């Protein structure tokens, strides 16, 4: 399940998380978690209004907010309006959420035990089906391509990005909006045994698109999708993506990743690490999409600093070009790639993805490279 790089690109990002409106802001917040009072919960009505959303659950509303922003950001929806400007059957939807409709299922079961099924509200029926999130995104924007809902545990968000790309690579659609969303409520907090303050209440969305289709409509790509892997452990997953210990420019770690002893760490210590869950809370099925959004912010910053060091915190990262004079710019050196991993050795598997700068954001390599970062780190 590995794609060649460069075939599928990211053309839009949308966020619906408190305190971070853009990929750059999400990255900043991740790098320097804000102390003090928690930001206000994300106000979905401010973005999508209230009309027509009365019976939608919180996860669905958050997903609609992120999807709308991503589709607008990709230029697929005009600034005013909600219909896509491309044929609806060229757009797929892939949503990821593990906890989204747990409350409907559990509260309904409890209400039946207390009274009877006759007393239930029929308006809850759609929310009893776990794919309600993906369905509403399609209905809202007229997206008639394949409509997937991933509920795949800790890796689910990154898996969703992969399946969005797979739909494009297989020619099923030209583009797909990929959404990761989670929320918290009494049911979720009880079943997870965690307080609401520890948990994400938010959503992130990406538009993944065939590079040629993006180009054909003049859309700007902000990242290219590299290979994806799902493996038994973190070490195996990273090794499959970056053979021989190549150092990526940045590593978006699994949720609450704790460094093990030096030999057990799969990524060189000089590579900066970001844990987005420190900024937005434990993110479950939304994590992978949030990580990709933050990685887009990192690529933008690295691109803005073209050649002068991908990341000020990366230390030697900027010196990691192995190219000599006259070398072709492909493949993108590892140091310009963002490594994203979800799930750790306690999960059923670890998913990993490389996010790459797009060609127009990849400046020519410097004439001479002093050292590669791996050498520095050993």
């Amino acid at each position, binding site marked *: *399940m*590995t794609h060649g790089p460069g075939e599928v690109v990211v053309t839009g990002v949308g966020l619906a998380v408190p305190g971070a409106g853009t990929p750059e802001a999400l990255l900043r917040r991740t790098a320097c978690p804000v102390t003090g009072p928690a930001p206000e919960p994300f106000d979905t009505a401010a973005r999508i209004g209230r009309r027509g959303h009365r019976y939608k659950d919180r996860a669905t509303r958050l997903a609609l907010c992120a999807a709308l922003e991503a589709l607008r950001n990709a230029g697929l929806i005009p600034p005013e309006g909600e219909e896509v400007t491309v044929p*609806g*059957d060229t757009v797929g*939807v892939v949503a990821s959420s*593990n906890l989204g409709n*747990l409350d*409907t*299922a*559990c509260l*309904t*079961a409890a209400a*039946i*035990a207390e*009274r*009877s*099924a*006759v007393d*239930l*509200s*029929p308006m*809850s*029926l*759609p929310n*009893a*089906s*776990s*794919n*309600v999130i*993906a*369905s509403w995104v*399609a*209905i809202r924007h*007229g*997206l*008639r*391509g*394949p*409509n*997937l*809902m*991933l*509920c*795949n*545990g800790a890796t*689910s968000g990154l*898996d969703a990005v992969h*399946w969005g790309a*797979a739909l494009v*690579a*297989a020619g*099923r659609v030209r583009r797909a909006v990929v959404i990761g969303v989670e929320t918290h409520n009494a*049911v979720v907090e009880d*079943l*997870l045994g965690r307080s609401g303050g520890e948990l994400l209440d938010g959503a992130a969305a990406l538009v993944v698109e065939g590079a040629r289709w993006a180009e054909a409509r003049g859309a700007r790509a902000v990242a290219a999708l590299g290979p994806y892997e*799902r493996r*038994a452990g973190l070490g195996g997953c990273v090794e499959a993506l970056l053979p021989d210990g190549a150092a990526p420019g940045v590593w978006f770690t699994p949720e609450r990743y704790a460094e093990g002893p030096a030999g057990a760490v799969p990524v060189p210590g000089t590579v900066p690490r970001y844990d987005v869950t420190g900024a937005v809370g434990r993110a479950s099925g939304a994590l992978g999409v949030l990580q990709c959004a933050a990685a887009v912010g990192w690529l933008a910053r690295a691109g803005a600093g073209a050649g002068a060091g991908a990341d000020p915190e990366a230390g030697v990262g900027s010196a990691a070009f192995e190219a000599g004079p006259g070398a072709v710019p492909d493949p993108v050196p590892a140091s310009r790639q963002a490594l994203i991993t979800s799930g750790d050795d306690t*999960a*059923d*598997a670890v998913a990993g993805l490389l996010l790459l700068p797009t060609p127009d954001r990849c400046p020519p390599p410097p004439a001479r490279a002093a050292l590669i970062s791996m050498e520095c780190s050993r």
Partner: protein
Amino acid sequence: MSQLVTGAGAVASVGEGVDEVFRALCAGTSGLGELRGFDRERYRTRHAYEIDDRPAPGTDLPGRATDWLLRAVGEAAAQAGLGEDLSEVPVLIGTGLRELRSAELAWRDGTPFDIGRLHFGTALRTRFGAVRTHTFSGACSASLYALALAADLLTTGAEDTVVVAGVDTLTESMYGLLDRVNSEPPDRVRPFDRDRRGVLMGDGAAAVVLRREDPGAESRALGRVRAVSMNCDANHVTAPDPQGIARAVHEAQWRAGVKPGDIDLVLLHGTGTQLNDAAEAAAIAEVFGREVSGPLMTAIKCMTGHTSGGSGLLSLIVALESLASGRVPPTLGLAEPLPEAEAFRFVREEAREGGDLRVAQIDAFGFGGVNAVAIVERAAR
């Protein structure tokens, strides 16, 4: 590009294992029974098509769906010669309701349940060493959607072999909400009958092993998947749209390179609801046109209940068995077809020797307007 089905597994209210399930369906055996695991007094509806594996009536256990899934995958993998080691094989699972029933029990009754087992990856890893597992929660077309994604993985050359599965059990929330919206509680599923009253849920799991076409592999194959379509109505969150269904049927036939006149058998989605059966019949009538009286048609939910996310794949396995044997299970309880389906050649009351059946179509549609349609072909005899 087509793929081979080299193994199949099934668990349902009517039996365990593909042979037993198919024999039971051809014999007109129904899995219908009075509600076993829920408190009957809380519902107007009192029936379902459950697998009778609980310790005592009125009690319920977590993890039942996971058990059936593992058994169905085990049967399919063994038949395909994969054994118990799936560490290198992607496993795609389509489900409507995951282990939400276990979550209901955990939250409401305090039944011990690891919330990390809402999806099926952990169980598949423990039993088969599988790590490339993906749980798709795509309502009632989920397993045919998973089949489509698996076919794409083989077509693009990314994989040689993929396991596809589907599973569901009744949740009290879904059963109760369906009870709430039915105007009159159904006592059985009567697909395409004028007097149908609605759907009843069923327990079950199904699995197939899908392989790339290799020279010589066909002799061991159960059949061939020619193509699978998938789309979304983008119209209504529960009601089906005949236009979206018609597009899915047409696309599947187009991808498979067949015309309506080439289809010998249709396994209809046929849930026995007013809306589905009318929409499906209208869509089939539109796409098949003058050929609509050609293929044999049947709907097995009259005997299995609506096995939700697993239902599409269960129908597909039955279709392959029918193509191989020439026998087609009947649509029980179909006294008078609804007007849109009057011209359909339903198999009624008892199984039929269909003769030389070569190509079958399988329908699966779900909440949210998610449609998937598969075209399969008999393996060379």
